[in-house]
């Protein structure tokens, strides 16, 4: 009895590649896949390390530039070794907050319009439009800003030129709208219909159902959409560069003032900066990076928390 089992084992193994080589191939392939996956990890680490290494350099070693002056400085004049970025931080924050305050409500309500109220025919027009808005490269928003918004502001602004915090806020609002609309709309659509039926069944009106049952149920999705919007607003460079005015100093006091966000500071001077000036630009990059990290971590926390509920 025993030997024919051995027999059988032999012919069955002939059919398949001998187990040993098959396993080796499996292992090799798996490691290749693993290495590809690690590329993302390596690149993130590399970016952080290099940007921080280059960015921290000026504040360390012999004639170090005081980090405090850098952080609190309100004047940026590379020729006179003056590198204050505080007023840029304020500009970036104000612009982002402005864009969020206007963009999120409008975006959310438009998403409600598309997901809950609009008839099918209208949705088929608005939705592709929003997707297109999302696809437009930011440079074009810059063109639009320069071509339309700046002149408009110029007419009503007490300041001589149109480039201003207001212009930046307008363009950033327009840019984050599609992100907020498409994401919020997706989460609203994901809310199961049984909630709407349950709410209507209790005698709630259509609007009450939307604002008291559907939106609360989609809260986490809307939150992450907002955070993504913030991320995009802070990180925007090209569109903002042409309409911000980029003064060399001064904390913006009113929406009409010229502003110089962190991102534009880097982009404008990087091509011709060198030595200490270049390192300072990297330092600005580090500050920006810090903001982004905060935004990313809150986003990940929200999405993971939403997962458990």
């Amino acid at each position, binding site marked *: 009895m025993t030997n024919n089992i051995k027999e059988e084992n032999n012919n069955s193994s002939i059919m398949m590649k001998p187990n040993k080589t098959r396993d080796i191939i499996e292992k090799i392939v798996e490691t290749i896949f693993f290495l590809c996956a690690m590329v993302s990890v390596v690149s993130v680490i590399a970016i952080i390390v290099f940007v921080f290494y280059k960015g921290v350099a000026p504040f360390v070693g012999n004639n170090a530039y005081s980090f405090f002056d850098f952080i609190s400085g309100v004047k940026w004049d590379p020729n006179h070794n003056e590198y204050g970025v505080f007023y840029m931080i304020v500009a970036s924050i104000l612009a982002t907050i402005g864009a969020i305050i206007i963009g999120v409500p409008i975006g959310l309500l438009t998403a409600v319009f598309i997901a809950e109220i609009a008839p099918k025919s209208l949705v088929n027009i608005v939705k592709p439009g929003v997707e297109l808005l999302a696809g437009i490269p930011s440079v074009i928003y810059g063109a639009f800003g320069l071509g339309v918004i700046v002149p408009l502001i110029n007419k009503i602004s007490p300041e001589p030129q149109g480039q201003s915090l207001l212009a930046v806020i307008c363009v950033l609002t327009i840019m984050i709208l599609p992100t907020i609309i498409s994401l919020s709309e997706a989460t609203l659509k994901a809310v199961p219909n049984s909630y709407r039926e349950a709410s209507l069944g*209790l005698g709630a009106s259509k609007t009450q159902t939307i604002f008291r049952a559907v939106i609360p149920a989609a809260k986490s999705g809307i939150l992450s959409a907002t955070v993504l919007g913030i991320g995009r607003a802070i990180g925007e460079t090209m569109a903002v560069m042409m309409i911000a005015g980029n003064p060399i100093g001064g904390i913006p006091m009113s929406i009409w003032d010229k502003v110089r966000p962190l991102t534009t500071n880097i982009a404008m001077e990087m091509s011709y900066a060198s030595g200490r000036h270049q390192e300072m630009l990297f330092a600005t990059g580090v500050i920006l990076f810090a903001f982004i990290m905060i935004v990313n971590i809150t986003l990940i926390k929200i999405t993971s928390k939403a997962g458990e*509920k």
Partner: protein
Amino acid sequence: MSNEVSKFSVQELDLYYSNFQALKKINMEIQEKEITAFIGPSGCGKSTFLKTINRMNDLVEGVKVDGKIYLDGVDIYKDIDVIKLRSRVGMVFQQPNPFPMSIYDNVAYGPRIHGIKKKSVLDEIVEKSLRQAAIWDEVKDKLKKSARAVSGGQQQRICIARTLAVEPEVILMDEPTSALDPISTLKIEDLAVELKEQYTIIIVTHNMQQASRISDKTAFFLTGEVIEYGKTEQIFNTPKNKKTEDYITGRFG
């Protein structure tokens, strides 16, 4: 037939989904403070009819309703605002669907949308409704916890409590226990029998034993028509119509 005023009087009711006729010439008087069961094979129109009573069918595109439904003698399609109707006629669904909020917020949702804000009043309503739904003892110390983190049977009773919180006069139940285990099912049935003291209950069910166990009157639906409607004992002992007999003795097809 007793001479009480019927809670619902349905006259010559037809319903069309675009061109498909789902309900044909429904005539029925539904009594107050009684459990009326609708039975029949799937697709026979019993759920559709139930959803016409609280006008949930209005949400469906291309629905057309002819004929009249009177609630306490008032035409629900003409003379009652749909919001008022739905707060007087509560509904419990097949799949327990508590909102993704705490148990407290779920039950308080109804009163809040109808303008009740004071916390003390809400607390009282929530407790009263949960007690009425025979689930107060099981959830009284975790009102703040999410309503979805409890068993299916408990979720369904929370949904019932949520409906009771709006103080309806009628409770519609659309196969309320088909997704529940036998024990929870019996709990819901006992609850329904208790609630019939104060509310008119209409229940759609596939489970004939359930219909015979808890209902006072039963209507047998087939392809959109009411084949037979009468006292439950009579329907389940000596049904007049052969089609009813065949259905309840399981002889069809």
